[in-house]
């Protein structure tokens, strides 16, 4: 399928077939999705095993053909087939192979193809690993997923065909945006998409359950691993995105409340709520209709996330492929998918069985509060993000809402939630006594109080917010440690044995909450104590900053694979030193980027970005950012907690339901 001719720019007959094969595979996938939808939904309605089996087969084949199409596009990039318009527009032969392949999803069309690929893989996964599901439920889930796939495959084929040819073919392509030529791009968007699309499984399960008229503990046990499987990559993706912006944009910031960042945060907030409410449904059979609603809304927000970037309705750092036509198509998809699901919800949800009762002081009660806060937080982000659109409709002008809005509105709702986080796992299901609960959290409370006191003594009243932030972090970290700690020290078995027998689910919970604590530590540190300084430096000059002496040693030119770099070398002595840092400016063929020099340490980062040449020197910007690395460590630790949870055998995909499972729901009949 490939021929490497000299220069990589001329192509033989075989190369020129690759794109046509990809195009054909996409059309076949579209037709198979139609079969999958029809056979799955109709077969389940009729209780027809042959049709349902056909739906499963179509799901696997559809995934296979989308994968083939994706491979064809990747090959076109790899061999520099510039007769494909997309390849010519987003890569050139000078680019390293890894970034050429990453360019496959660096464009609008390519990223939509990736979207469809992830959806196909999820569908095939449910078809193959879903054998213990109730057969009709599985068929309906696949049917609903096929409807979503139809919408997006149609979007690709009819409005954003990635395989369009150029005639005559250019000899060389243009450049992929250099900002995107970073290891962050190779991993960040695919992870976000796995997360976004992963929630389609939750959505399909919700719609299927409404169609069946049946939501029970068995359903929740099935949904939770799929939600977790979406939540983990989304968490990692958001964290990586933040890290990428920090390293690559050269602004020293880690979160900008940019519409596209918000678009990934909204499904994350609701997805987190969904994880918790599905737990209640699984254990106690309660919150059924609320959980269904969350599943629908989480996926809808993922769609809105896609919509935001594509439509150009809002401006953003990421706005590529601005095209109202595409916006209208995706808006139509959101309207049909969410509208149909919510209509089904209004029709069927009232007849769902109400769950077991519980007292207000109980784990269920705490999780309801958690859900309430997370939903409100999600709403504030939604309102902030879309305020420009709606304010404009009321007759005023388009405006956009900046970071001050978020720090005033977001924080007051986030802080109570963070305080609540420690209480949740300490509460018993069904009912509990407030006084015993308070006794259980006395250790984290004491730790937090000590940190608060220490903070106030050392920084005084002026630093009260910072001290409170640190105390909150301490409260969360100690509270996370107390979750398994309570089992280990209170248990009758020996310490070693109780550590070994702790279920991964409990450890995962503890680790995820620990990650949250670390995140709060990082945010507090950088918000309260970040300092910066801008100055013009000449080689040989030095300056003092944040307890360090920073000397500019030299400014020199160096060549990269497809750019020229100007490297400024700094020698740092003092706190954490001595060490040297190199800040780069890269000139690509058509644009420039800044590679900041960052010295990472647990106590704080030193961030240097080298700017323009002026008056014989260069403009240097220095930042000292205490504790900032804990923001990303926290994000990764949270995702790690999710992974540990996922390894719990009670959640394992396809694992047979154990007789001892505490859930009261009926055991699903094995498929086949």
């Amino acid at each position, binding site marked *: 399928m490939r021929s490497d001719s000299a220069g990589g720019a001329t192509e033989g007959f075989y190369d020129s077939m690759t794109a046509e094969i990809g195009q054909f595979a996409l059309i076949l996938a579209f037709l198979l999705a139609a079969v999958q939808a029809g056979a799955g939904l109709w077969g389940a309605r009729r209780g027809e095993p042959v049709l349902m089996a056909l739906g499963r087969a179509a799901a696997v084949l559809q995934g296979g053909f989308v994968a083939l199409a994706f491979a064809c596009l990747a090959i076109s990039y790899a061999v520099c087939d510039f007769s494909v318009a997309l390849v010519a527009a987003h890569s050139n032969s000078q680019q390293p192979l890894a970034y050429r392949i990453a360019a496959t999803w660096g464009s609008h069309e390519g990223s939509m193809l990736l979207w469809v690929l992830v959806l196909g893989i999820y569908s095939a996964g449910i078809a193959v690993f879903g054998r213990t599901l109730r057969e009709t439920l599985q068929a309906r889930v696949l049917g609903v997923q096929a409807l979503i796939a139809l919408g997006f495959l149609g979007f690709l084929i009819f409005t954003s065909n990635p395989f369009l040819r150029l005639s005559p073919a250019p000899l060389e392509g243009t450049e992929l*945006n250099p900002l995107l030529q970073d290891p962050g791009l190779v991993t960040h968007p695919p992870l976000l998409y796995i997360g976004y699309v992963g929630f389609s499984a939750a959505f399909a399960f919700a719609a299927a359950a409404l169609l069946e008229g049946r939501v029970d503990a068995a359903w929740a046990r099935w949904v939770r691993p799929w939600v977790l499987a979406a939540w983990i990559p989304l968490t990692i993706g958001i964290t990586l995105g933040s890290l990428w912006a920090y390293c690559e*944009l*050269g*602004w020293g910031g880690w979160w900008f409340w940019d519409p596209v960042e918000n678009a990934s945060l909204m499904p994350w907030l609701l997805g987190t709520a969904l994880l918790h409410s599905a737990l209640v449904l699984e254990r106690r059979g309660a919150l059924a*209709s609320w959980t269904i*609603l969350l599943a*629908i*809304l989480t996926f*809808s927000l993922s769609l809105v996330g896609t*919509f935001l970037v594509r*439509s150009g*309705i*809002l*401006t953003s*750092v990421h*706005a*590529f492929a*601005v095209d*109202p036509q595409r*916006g*209208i198509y995706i*808006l139509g998809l*959101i*309207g049909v998918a*969410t*509208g149909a699901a*919510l*209509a089904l*919800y*209004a029709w069927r*949800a*009232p007849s769902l069985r109400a769950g077991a009762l519980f007292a207000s002081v109980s784990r269920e009660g705490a999780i309801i509060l958690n859900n309430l806060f997370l939903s409100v937080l999600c709403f504030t982000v939604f309102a902030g993000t*879309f305020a*420009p*659109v*709606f304010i*404009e*409709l009321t007759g*005023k*002008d*388009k*405006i*956009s809402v*900046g*970071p*001050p809005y978020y720090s005033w509105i977001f924080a007051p709702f986030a802080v109570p939630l963070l305080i609540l986080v420690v209480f949740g796992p300490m509460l018993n299901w069904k009912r509990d006594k407030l006084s015993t609960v308070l006794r259980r959290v006395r250790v984290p409370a004491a730790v937090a109080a000590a940190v608060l006191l220490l903070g106030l003594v050392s920084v005084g009243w002026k630093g009260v917010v910072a001290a409170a932030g640190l105390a909150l972090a301490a409260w969360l970290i100690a509270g996370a440690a107390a979750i398994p700690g309570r089992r280990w020290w209170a248990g009758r078995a020996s310490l070693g044995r109780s550590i070994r027998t702790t279920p991964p689910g409990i450890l995962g919970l503890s680790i995820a909450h620990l990650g949250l604590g670390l995140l709060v530590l990082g945010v507090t540190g950088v918000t309260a104590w970040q300092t910066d300084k*801008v*100055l*013009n430096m000449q080689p040989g000059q030095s300056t003092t900053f944040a307890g360090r002496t920073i000397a500019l040693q030299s400014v020199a030119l160096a060549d990269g694979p497809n750019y020229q770099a100007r490297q400024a070398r700094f020698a740092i002595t003092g706190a954490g030193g001595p060490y040297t840092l190199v800040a780069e*400016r890269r*000139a690509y063929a058509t*644009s*420039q980027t*800044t590679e900041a020099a960052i010295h990472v340490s647990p106590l704080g980062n030193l961030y240097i*970005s080298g*700017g*323009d040449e*002026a008056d014989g020197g260069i*403009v240097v*910007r220095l930042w000292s950012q205490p504790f900032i690395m804990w923001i990303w460590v926290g994000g990764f630790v949270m995702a790690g907690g999710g992974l540990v949870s996922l390894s719990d055998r009670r959640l394992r995909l396809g694992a047979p339901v154990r007789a001892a499972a505490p859930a009261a729901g009926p055991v699903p009949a094995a498929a086949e």
Partner: protein
Amino acid sequence: MKRLLFLAPIAVFVVVLVGFMAGLQRDPSILPSMLIGKPLPAFALAPMRPGGQGFTSAELVGQPVMVNVFASWCTVCKEEHPVLMALREQGVNIVGLDWREDADAGARWLAANGDPYAKTGNDASGRIGIDMGVSGAPETFVLDKRGRVRYRQVGEITPQVWSQTLGPLMARLRAES
């Protein structure tokens, strides 16, 4: 009553969807400005470099001027840039408002791509942009000799936009007394 509660999600959704639809249906290029015929709200923009000069709204009187909102993160601005450079060559009076980013990033971008502006100032927080009703970048306000907004161009100034709309308008404004 209970049924009504379950209808609430779809009711809210329909309202939001209609909002989005309307937001998309509006052609952004014909967005009028509330400021047409009025002066820009008073502002003072920060300098792009430490020790440099920003500019204030009061400095924009005397001759017709185009206030161009740009940012280094805005990809469309990059496409618009050569057009602005060409206009600068022709002596068109353009000032730049570096929007929602650190001045440093904007200054670097101008150094790399060329500076078509007579004056440049930075609005890092986007606060001044809010007062002006900026919907995004690029966006251009055309001011007459008395500093009143006469036209608002949302989106890129293409050679076509210049030759058909902005060019004749600027010529007319120069001829006004």
